[in-house]
């Protein structure tokens, strides 16, 4: 890592740490921002680096959310009884109980989606191109509908999450820190991962899967690992987001295929897919735009989202980083030297 890039990283980290103290009223919004960064990064592992465009990655987010909720409640109470009461039953968690439940919940919310991703990859990775996109979309919609009809986890009525024990302002700062740690470790992990052979392998799958296979790559294993990595971090994000919201239900919070599920794709494309920083920049820009304009659009925001996607893919396919790479190639020379190969084409 060059000196300049180190300074840049540290400055961003410092800004991230300072943000909730400077603007305590917006800590939750900042936390959601980190979740969005994580969304874009994990989507890009599949869609950008490997060329497998999933429209259903939100599945792992929802899974993580529900697994964490059921674990937290199940440790001290009967889940079916709790959900059946529609929030009438209030459980008093002691501090150790709450944090132990949360820790175990987050751990399971990270691991079980990995197993699910590994199992699903047997089924779904035989599908290529648009079939994969439609298949994953189908899985996500099916998961939402089934959760909606499953009474044990509250069905459409949802689950009221355990109440955070700390004083006012503590809850926001706690979950802000958790979300930031999740997103930053996701970034660092992917940064390391993209420096290894793994990245070359998944890029080879993106460029020509049949040739990669013919050259002896076990494409199936790479695809499974790449999806599992996404699932791991998305599961954690879901668990944290559920606890931060305080109330979860299947269609709007846990499996929002048409909002969060599409935001992932839109953010990555906006920033430039197939790069490490593209998703981060895309998420920052998208999230800022969304926060600033959302409430002024008076219901037209989702129309604007649809239009943004169309304009993005039709007229601005390479994304911001791809555009910069064409315009100011010398900014990307350093990266080229360290990587030892030309940077991946953004619009592959």
């Amino acid at each position, binding site marked *: 890592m060059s000196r300049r890039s180190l300074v840049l990283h540290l400055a961003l980290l410092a800004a991230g740490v300072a943000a909730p103290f400077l603007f305590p009223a917006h800590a939750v919004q900042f936390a959601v921002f980190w979740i969005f960064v994580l969304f874009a990064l994990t989507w890009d592992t599949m869609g950008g680096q490997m060329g497998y465009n999933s429209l259903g990655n939100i599945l792992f987010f929802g899974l993580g959310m529900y697994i964490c909720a059921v674990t937290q409640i199940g440790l001290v109470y009967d889940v079916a009884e709790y959900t059946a009461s529609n929030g009438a039953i209030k459980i008093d968690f002691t501090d150790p109980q709450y944090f132990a439940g949360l820790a175990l919940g987050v751990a399971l919310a990270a691991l079980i989606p990995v197993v699910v991703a590994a199992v699903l990859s047997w089924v779904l990775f035989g599908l290529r191109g648009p079939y994969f996109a*439609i298949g994953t979309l189908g899985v996500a919609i099916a998961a939402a509908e089934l959760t909606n009809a499953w009474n044990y986890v509250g069905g459409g009525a949802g689950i009221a999450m355990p109440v955070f024990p700390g004083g006012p302002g503590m809850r926001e700062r706690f979950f802000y820190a958790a979300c930031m740690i999740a997103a930053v470790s996701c970034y660092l992990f992917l940064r390391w991962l993209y420096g290894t052979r793994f990245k070359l392998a998944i890029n080879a799958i993106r460029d020509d899967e049949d040739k990669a296979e013919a050259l002896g790559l076990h494409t199936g294993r790479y695809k499974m690992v790449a999806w599992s990595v996404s699932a791991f971090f998305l599961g954690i994000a879901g668990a944290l987001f559920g606890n931060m919201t305080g109330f979860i239900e299947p269609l709007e919070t846990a499996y929002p295929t048409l909002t969060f599920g599409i935001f992932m794709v839109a953010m990555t494309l906006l920033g430039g897919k197939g790069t490490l920083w593209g998703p981060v920049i895309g998420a920052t820009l998208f999230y800022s735009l969304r926060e600033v304009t959302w409430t002024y659009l008076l219901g037209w925001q989702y129309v604007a989202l*649809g239009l943004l996607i169309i304009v993005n893919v039709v007229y601005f396919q390479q994304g911001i980083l791809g555009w910069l790479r064409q315009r100011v190639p010398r900014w990307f020379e350093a990266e080229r030297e360290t990587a030892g190969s030309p940077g991946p084409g953004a619009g592959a």
Partner: protein
Amino acid sequence: MLDNLQILLSQPVFNLQLLLNGLSVGAVFALIAYGLGLVWGVTAIKNLAQGDLVMLGGFLSFEFAQHGVHPIVSLVPVCAIMFGFGWILYKLVIRRVIQLDLFTSLLATFGLAITLQQALNLVFGPEVRTVSSGFGRLELAGGMVDITEIRLIGFGLCVLLAAGMVIFMKTSRIGQAIRATAQDPRAARVLGVNADLVYALTFSINAAICGAAGTLIAMIWVIQPFYGIAYSVRAFVIVTAAGLGNLPGVILAALGLGVLEQYSGFVFGAQFQQATIVGLLLAILIWRQLALLRHRKALQ
């Protein structure tokens, strides 16, 4: 669930009811899937906005009905408006993604789907609507089975429209040009077919078909801005199951899907309807993949 199954077994006449309802909606599914397959075959674009175009057509006929136009009469203006709308969509969006990779076009049409459904929601509200056609009900089997007359009329209209489409594609100059482009775009271009015009016409014709299907659905069933995605998924299920360019297969799969949906809705309950369609989609995709796997094994 088992109770409902028992009813079906002990009272066979209920099967007739489900069968009739299923066939009448299945005919409309066939129309939608035919349009999807047409665009898919000619331009290689998998139009995820198909169901939302259907809903747009339905709401247009709803709007006409508000102004006193009978829905069957409104078929003509709705189709004309949708044809024009399809043309505009083609010029603005589709034309620019035809040459790009398949995911780009998929995502562009998905963006289109979101835009359409949200715009419909803002203009017409999220209520479930239907357009009254003023026809009565028909009682069969001594009152055990009843079906609205409009379902029978809708079925007839569907058959007429489909037959018209097939004859148009087989005999007219434009139809021949479209089919030629689907078979081999390069050869068609060499022989003087204007590919851009053919693509535009194909997409516009598909939009008109969706408009007709939407009008029929508004008459025989219900429309709602967010129901579009279910129709897109259904059309995908049908086309994927039947195979591209297999017209008898599309009709059979569509009617089968219509009937199957009625049965699953009756046996499992209405809240599983969407899950059933999506589950079916996954089953078909997996089945295709297993077939592919066998093929690959043979190659080894």
